[in-house]
């Protein structure tokens, strides 16, 4: 980075440190913080979409759709989320490759599952072997993102269906009395009124989403945990910047990063909640 960093062996003290924290690997480490932010900003709307679909489905008048929706919302209560984080990316990957194999290589008759192997033809591989590295990265990240959307969608669906149930019955009956159709009641009465009930649950969900982002590491993505392990490990003399085991320091930095992120989020969410409570017929509304 700096011109004096050419020979790190001769450096000492702050000079050494300034060179150390600006190596190319450290730049990747800093970039991975942006990946976390990117994941948060993409996973939150995706989870809301999944959750909204789940909550709506669980109120459907069709029995099959209703039980599908209810099953989706219920599954997250019994099964640890890590199971889904490990399962969904592999399952999706195999499902995509299976479908592509059926379409692209319909002439291959050998079974796909051969003992302990999952064999698809070269053309069906995702991403293709010839694809450049960034395609692999993006593909892996997208699978992880879908897993996050799916798991947090189930959480969000629980919050939203609770909020929909909390909207006073009389509001809906009033709509019916005025001759609104079911979809009009849903769009004009239920949805606008449910947000204030959903807010506490959704704020909680946002905090949990923040705290779930290091699980990206489990999905084989070079995220902040990967780099903290990589950079913090013992570096012997063969490295340019030898140092003892510094992993505790690196993970300490991650702790501080997450603590500030949750602290900041909490103060913003408190402000939003105070603003939305203004003039509501609740204790918080009257106090303010």
């Amino acid at each position, binding site marked *: 980075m700096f011109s004096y960093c050419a020979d790190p062996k001769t450096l000492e003290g702050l000079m050494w440190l300034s060179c150390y924290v600006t190596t190319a690997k450290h730049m990747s480490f800093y970039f991975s913080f942006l990946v976390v932010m990117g994941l948060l900003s993409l996973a939150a709307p995706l989870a809301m979409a999944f959750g909204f679909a789940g909550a709506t489905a669980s109120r459907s008048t069709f029995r099959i759709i209703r039980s599908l929706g209810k099953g989706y919302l219920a*599954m*997250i*209560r*019994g*099964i*640890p*989320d*890590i*199971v889904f984080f*490990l*399962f969904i990316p*592999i*399952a999706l990957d*195999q499902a995509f490759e299976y479908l592509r194999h059926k379409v692209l290589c319909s002439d291959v008759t050998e079974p796909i*599952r051969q*003992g*302990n*192997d*999952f064999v698809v033809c070269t053309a069906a591989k995702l991403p293709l072997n010839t694809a450049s590295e960034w395609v692999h990265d993006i593909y892996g990240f997208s699978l992880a993102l879908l897993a996050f959307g799916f798991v947090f969608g189930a*959480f969000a669906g*629980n*919050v939203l*269906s*609770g909020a929909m*149930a909390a909207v006073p019955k009389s509001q809906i009956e009033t709509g019916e009395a005025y001759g609104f159709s079911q979809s009009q009641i849903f769009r004009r009465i239920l949805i606008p009124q449910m947000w204030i009930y959903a807010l*506490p*649950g959704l704020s*909680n*969900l946002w905090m*949990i989403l*923040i*705290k*779930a*982002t*290091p*699980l990206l*590491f*489990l999905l084989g993505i070079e995220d902040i*945990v990967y780099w*903290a*392990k990589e950079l*913090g490990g013992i570096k012997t003399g063969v490295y340019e910047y030898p140092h003892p*085991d510094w*992993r*505790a320091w690196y*993970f*300490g930095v*991650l*702790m501080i990063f*997450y*603590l500030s992120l*949750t*602290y900041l989020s909490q103060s913003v969410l408190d402000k939003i909640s105070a603003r939305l409570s203004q003039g509501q017929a609740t204790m918080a509304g009257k106090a303010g």
Partner: protein
Amino acid sequence: MSSCFQTLSDYGLRSIGYGERLLPKSDITLCEQFVLIGSGMIWNIYFAVLALLLGFFFATVLALGKNSNLSLFSAPCRLFIFIFRGSPLFIQFFFAYDLFVLLPRLGFDIDLGFLVVTVETRWLTKAWLGALIVLFFNTSAYAGEIFYGALRAVPSQDLESADAFGFTGIKKFRRIIWPTMLRLAWPSYTNEAIFMFHATTLVFFTGFPAWQQKGDAIYYASYFADKTFNPFVPYPIVGFYFVLLTLLIIGLFGFINRRLNKHLPTNERKRLRFNKYNLIR
């Protein structure tokens, strides 16, 4: 079928080091997956039960501390709760493990004057102790916040009646405040217990090594998923075990909840309903 009994005796206690040493490598049967993943559940139950039992008492202390008027008590409790609730458990595991590794390996002596205690620091880097400590602190912080909320919600009339009857100090706490606090906190605490069981699945994915492949349920499940390249069998098995466990917890905590609400008139009793807001950690 008889071979499945054989598998059960080979691998039933594999996760704690009894039975066959080598894990199945090829021709993995459904029975082997069921037995070995079930064997791993021993660790999940061990971590969660001990962390919850110990955490319950520490959480009460934290809640009382946070509620204290003296900032000497309330500030450290607030800080503790903030640190463990504000950062991911996954990072806490890594951080704690790397700290434990840095401690002197052989242990050090603490001279208490009349007796010298040797602290074996190398145990801290083993999952059974190190991860248990992290889980214990973590659940204490979450439960502490729940208890603190409940403590603030104890009706003021109850406290006034206690004063009128001359209850003070420990007696007032043990007879009046604590039972009401528990009753109010119980639905959320049940939820916390469920999530504690789920959180134990993280242990062997962090720094803590699974020594001699003695791992928890999800450790074996991911082992099978790697070996067979088929995620559609082992992960649903883990899911099945955890659903059973969750139902068991709900049953047990529901029983305690009924005891806590026994003195109330029937129409005021709170059934342990899984409030949809209340589902998330």
